[in-house]
């Protein structure tokens, strides 16, 4: 690796050496942790993506060793290449935090906020963004934007109201499929993802648009309303497949496979498969192989993320900071419903990552009785 020229970049006071041409987000991901700018539209595996959502804005306080002038505007870190000696401020800059709060607000003013019925809830990037960078409450009083529902085929559910126009699915479909089937219609506020005109998406690789969608705009129709993400347990599995790498993640509850997705890392990007290519999966693997017998199980997936699905139950996850009490001054918040009292999986005392093989309801049986008492307890306290 010595022949690749490396440059030194400092992000929030942490220095790292990365190859020439790396953008700031990827350099930050090498460091990891809280300084990594949130990315709603950037997807390193998709060429041309990024620069649109503006949630990854950072402040460049020193341009480079040669030209130490700071950049006057905040820059989109996903489309700005690092220079030698560059100094970047991410979460340590007030301007950046304010701009991200603004972007979050902009993304949410027309979002339907239907998380309780959204299949993406729990692994939604917009939830993460608003949790980390959003303000409490909303300042908009206007009717939210809605679109006519559109049917784009038997496998993919398009829910345009939730879309944040990240263009990821457009790039994914263009780069993975032979025929260009869908794109952006209209302009400005009324721009929307659509097929020309209201055709179905039926390419063999097009299911990957579900995986790249950061919100619940494109979801799996075969998983629709079947289960909540945090009730299912991710298990890595593979099978022989002619069209794709066949390496997937099954989302199981008991012995039932609820959903099949590609394997994704902590930034929700698809991993490289063992054949060296990006591990996109085909529609057959995704939508038709929903029996455990179709797959060779490799073991539980280690998910290293901070989203709702992983709260306290997976490796290296952070617990949310409880700030509700500070917000509702003088009122003590009431616990209405403890999710762990209802869920078979994700019990705090069960470390899912330590269970080998798919999770059976047997694994949770000893706690069944306690569950019911807990429910009663919660009820009485009220």
């Amino acid at each position, binding site marked *: 690796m010595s022949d690749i020229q490396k440059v030194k970049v400092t992000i929030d006071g942490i220095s790292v050496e990365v190859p020439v041409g790396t953008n700031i987000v990827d350099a930050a991901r090498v460091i990891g942790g809280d300084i990594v700018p949130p990315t709603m539209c950037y997807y390193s595996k998709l060429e041309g993506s990024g620069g649109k959502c*503006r949630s990854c804005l950072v402040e460049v306080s020193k341009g480079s060793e040669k030209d130490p002038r700071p950049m006057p505007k905040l820059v989109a870190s996903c489309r700005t290449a690092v220079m030698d000696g560059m100094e970047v401020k991410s979460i340590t800059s007030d301007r950046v935090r304010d701009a991200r709060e603004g972007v979050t*607000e902009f993304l949410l003013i027309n979002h339907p906020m239907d998380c309780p019925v959204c299949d993406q809830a729990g692994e939604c990037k917009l939830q993460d963004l608003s949790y980390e960078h959003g303000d409490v409450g909303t300042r908009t009083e206007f009717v939210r934007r809605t679109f006519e529902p559109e049917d784009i085929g038997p496998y993919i559910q398009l829910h345009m109201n939730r879309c944040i126009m990240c263009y990821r699915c457009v790039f994914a479909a263009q780069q993975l499929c032979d025929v260009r089937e869908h794109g952006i219609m*209209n302009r*400005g506020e009324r721009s929307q993802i659509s097929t020309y005109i209201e055709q179905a998406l039926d390419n063999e690789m097009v299911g990957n648009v579900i995986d790249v969608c950061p919100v619940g705009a494109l979801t799996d129709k075969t998983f629709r309303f079947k289960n909540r993400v945090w009730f299912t347990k991710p298990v890595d599995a593979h099978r022989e497949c002619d069209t794709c790498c066949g390496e997937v993640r099954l989302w199981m509850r008991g012995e039932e496979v609820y959903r099949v997705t590609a394997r994704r890392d902590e930034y929700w990007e698809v991993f490289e498969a063992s054949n060296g290519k990006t591990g996109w999966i085909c529609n057959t693997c995704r939508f038709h192989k929903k029996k455990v017998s179709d797959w060779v199980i490799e073991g539980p997936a280690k998910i290293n993320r901070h989203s709702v699905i992983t709260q306290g139950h997976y490796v290296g996850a952070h617990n949310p900071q409880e700030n509700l009490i500070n917000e509702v001054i003088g009122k003590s918040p009431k616990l209405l419903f403890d999710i762990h009292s209802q869920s078979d999986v994700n019990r705090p005392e069960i470390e899912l990552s330590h269970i080998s093989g798919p999770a059976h309801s047997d694994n949770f049986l000893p706690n069944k009785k306690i569950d019911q008492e807990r429910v009663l307890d919660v009820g009485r306290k009220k």
Partner: protein
Amino acid sequence: MKLLLAKAHIPNIRSYEVWKANGGYASVEKALKMTTDEIVEEVKKSGLRGRGGAGFPTGMKWSFIAKPEGVPRHLVVNADESEPGTFKDRYLMEFLPHLFIEGIIISSYALGSNTSYIYIRGEYAWIPDILNAAIAEAKAAGYLGKNILGTGFDLEIHVHRGAGAYICGEETALIESIEGKRGNPRIKPPFPAVQGLWMRPTVVNNVESIAAVSPIIEMGGEAYSKIGVGKSTGTKLISACGNINKPGVYEIDMTISVEEFIYSDAYCGGIANGKRLKACIPGGSSVPILPANLLLKTAKGEPRMMNYESLSDGGFQTGTMMGSGGFIVLDEDQCIVRHTMSLAHFYMHESCGQCSPCREGTGWMYRILKNIEYGKGKMKDIDLLWDVQRRIEGNTICPLGDAAAWPVAAAIRHFRDEFEWHVTHPEEAQVRNFGLAHYADERTVVAP
């Protein structure tokens, strides 16, 4: 002083014969005997600043173009003049097409572009015909096509019609549109000078900048730079409109004052119907609006002149910008809230929808302004509006976000009491206007 419009009054100047008989194409013949570097040097010396709005020196822009071996370069002329209040390019193209084509030939020769494009806005439906006719005439006379004047330089000019999108006036969106794609601005870098049209080095210039190249070559960069003051050299076309007696396109040499421009009979001829001046947007709808007292005199008390430096004196706090020269005058009967609302509606409608602050923020600003205008506003809405524009400005991919935020910011900055009056007197605001209040400069009250 007239350079660009000097021959505009001659009857039938549109035709090649009349243009040639009046000294046309002399600059092309002079330029093609020079080397390309000499032309770039002349333009640099002239101090010509881009007339499209940003005011970036044209010669500097030309010298930035990358020159890799074996890769063609392109000149694209931005004739997508969609800024509300600006109509100077239309006048140039419609009445002096040969002056414009002369400029394109010289600029293309200087930049080494063998295929140049004119991107013209779709609403100018009749102008492409005028330009195409002029291009055909120039080709027949040997000024276009293969081996121009025996120099071995080839040039084809294509006229590309837009489809009526303001955003396609942004240079990278314009390039995307010529390529046949959706008119979304590209993320910079790479800049068009390195990777522009068809991923080749490209220079995008405004019509007026290109047309000004012809007189620069004719009279020499040195002489051109002596016109005007300071860094505002040469002449500028101003398209004046609004509540004035003589709206139209005027060529000024940037040494006159704003007061003279508005009240002199040679230019706007004063405020229409003997009303008083309330406010003015001196450079097209995107630049900040100024109340009369700040428009005619800078914060330091000096008279404000019609040039780049003087108009932007005081920054956005007490100044504005030259912009593209769309001079919109508002008299005492105009409502600033309604005016700002209609601008906000324009930017909401023209946002491409690519990046979130602009897509969501422009519509939000419009709805807040609509509430205030129609008597449903609250005091906190004004602060909210300020906050929204602050978070759009500078955080978007292209300058449309800034252009949408600046008019709103300036309106609140200078006319906050009018916004507050709309909130406190919702019913009265429906039937009468706020009027002049303290914005007027007493000195400017002229008898009709």
